[in-house]
């Protein structure tokens, strides 16, 4: 197995073998990211393909300050966000809600099957799905999300709250979670 540095060098020289190695190295992880953002597998594969096109095109701009994986992941997330950004802007919710508008229940998350969880996340409306992923999984702040998606911070908070509520409701309806106690908040 060649070192990452050699693979990157090969990619910079447009060598197909190196490009394939880089793709193979990160495809599964990045496809996992794509599946969380996309509405279906076809969309996820499109995002992965577009994202890697950008990776190969912009690899010369990669500074070795952070990890290559982190850099590629950021590109994949950006590609996914770009794909749905127009829709998100067009589907801003009318009423703003805060996290606390929706009851939080203590949930036993340990037994949730990951594949089922992904399926449920994918079934969320696009504006909730994207904000949920960016906030809950990637760790962006609402301010950062509002800048990236060109929506207000309140909309971001509201979408996230709704996403979380819907997610838990769906998990409950599918009998994938059990409640261990009453609501923690409210």
């Amino acid at each position, binding site marked *: 197995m060649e070192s990452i540095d050699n693979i990157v060098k090969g990619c910079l020289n447009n060598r197909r073998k190196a490009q394939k190695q880089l793709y193979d190295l990160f*495809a599964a*992880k990045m496809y*996992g990211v794509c599946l969380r953002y996309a509405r279906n597998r076809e969309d996820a594969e*499109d995002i992965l393909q577009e994202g890697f096109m*950008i990776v190969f095109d912009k690899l010369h701009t990669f500074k070795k300050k952070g990890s290559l994986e982190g850099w590629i992941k950021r590109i994949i997330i950006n590609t996914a966000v770009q794909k749905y950004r127009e829709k998100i802007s067009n589907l801003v919710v009318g009423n703003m809600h805060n996290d606390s508008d929706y009851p*939080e229940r203590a949930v036993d998350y340990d037994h949730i099957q990951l594949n089922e969880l992904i399926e449920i996340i994918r079934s969320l409306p696009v504006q909730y799905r994207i904000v949920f992923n960016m906030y809950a999984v990637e760790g962006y702040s609402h301010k950062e999300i509002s800048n990236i998606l060109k929506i207000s911070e309140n909309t971001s908070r509201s979408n996230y709250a709704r996403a*979380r509520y819907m997610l838990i409701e769906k998990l409950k309806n599918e009998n994938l979670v059990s409640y261990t106690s009453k609501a923690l908040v409210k």
Partner: protein
Amino acid sequence: MNNDKQKMRKKDIFENNIGEKLRNFQSQPSSRVWKELEAGLDNTRKLSRQRYIKYAAAIILLLATAWGIYEALVYIGTPHDQVADVFSPKPSENVEISEKTKPDIISEKEVPDIYQEITVSEIEDTDFFLPVKQEKDKKKIAAHVIDSLKPVMHEEEFVSDIFETSLAGYSIIKTTDDITISGVELKQPAVYARSISEQDPYFDDIPERNRWSVGIKIAPQYAFRINSSEPEVLYRGKAIFEQNEKHLYTYNLGIDVKYQLSNKISLESGLQYIRMGQSIRNINIYHHPGNESPFGILPAHVNHPQSVLTSMGEIHFTDPTLYFDDISAHRVLTLEEVNEPDDVLLERGDRLNQHLGFLEVPLTIRYNLYDGLVKIQLKGGVGFNYLVNNSVVLQREGFRNSIGTTSLIRNWNSSITGGVALQVPVTDKLNFYIEPSANLFISSMTYGREYNVYPYGISLYTGLGYAF
């Protein structure tokens, strides 16, 4: 404060569980992704090469145009009325007549009296520093010389030699070893010169050249676009557009006005209708007849809730009974819930042709490469375009229906153009011409988007011009 803590606590619980699980999720994509990625990478290489070719062509065209403009300015700045005085000295003053180099074989009487022999070195000086006043003068002088030499000249090669060396103020005959005059072979080069005056009869006999001409022209055109978007800012991948968008065959037509500035250079303007565009492939189109559209009952004022993203703007539809579905990517945006139509599929993978018609005012410079019976010219210039027609046409077998328009298209644009022109005289006044040409928009056709799209057309003009 308590509220913040509660939120933090909520976030911790939720993220530590769900978030952590999701962060580590992996799955293997299908082999299709790499195959298409590989195809896209090949395509990018080709596009990159095309980009360099485009830049090189644009630079050559700009240089040619700049050179043409320079030539025109130099010509305009030259005091033509004084050329004869400044550059056409009388032979006795500036051209030393050699008495000793007259060839022995040729006798004095075989060369008309009006010609005097000069040395080769002198003629070289004269040759290259005396500018021809105008093409017509050159021809008149040559015609005069030929006429004067008729008694002594039979060889056709000699005629072409005269054409080459008849310069302003002088008609010059430069012979070579191969030339025979009146059956007498010249054994060494000899050069004869005489001055031509404005009073020579040929200046009156030959009519003035027509400087103006008007014409009509029409051209079939291959129309497409260059998409130079940066991939990271694309809403959809560049590769998807490249795979699903094709060229169109359209047409251009117009009228032109030309002004002959000098022997070599003419200027052209006029008014043209040029039709740019592209063909969108792999969109399924369903027809849902009746009052209810696939989107439910739409009030008359409500726009069609679907649109199609293309590299050349966004297509909006006018007929609510049509439903669109992308069969290769996800270019169809739908803002409403769709009742999946179970009725007529018009045709799988229909063509949606984006037609964008512009009125163009061109400013073109033409340079004469060859000026014989047939004229060959190089042309290059700029054009200013105004959008006058915007339609999306559904092209099916035997049908062409206008079903929408493209949004985000600039009304004004500019372009560069270049080509070759072949002009054939039909009568004294009427010319037929054929012009293979190319034009390229130099400002992006769309606005408000991340795409930079530059339409281009390759066309073959044919037309008629009337000189006056």
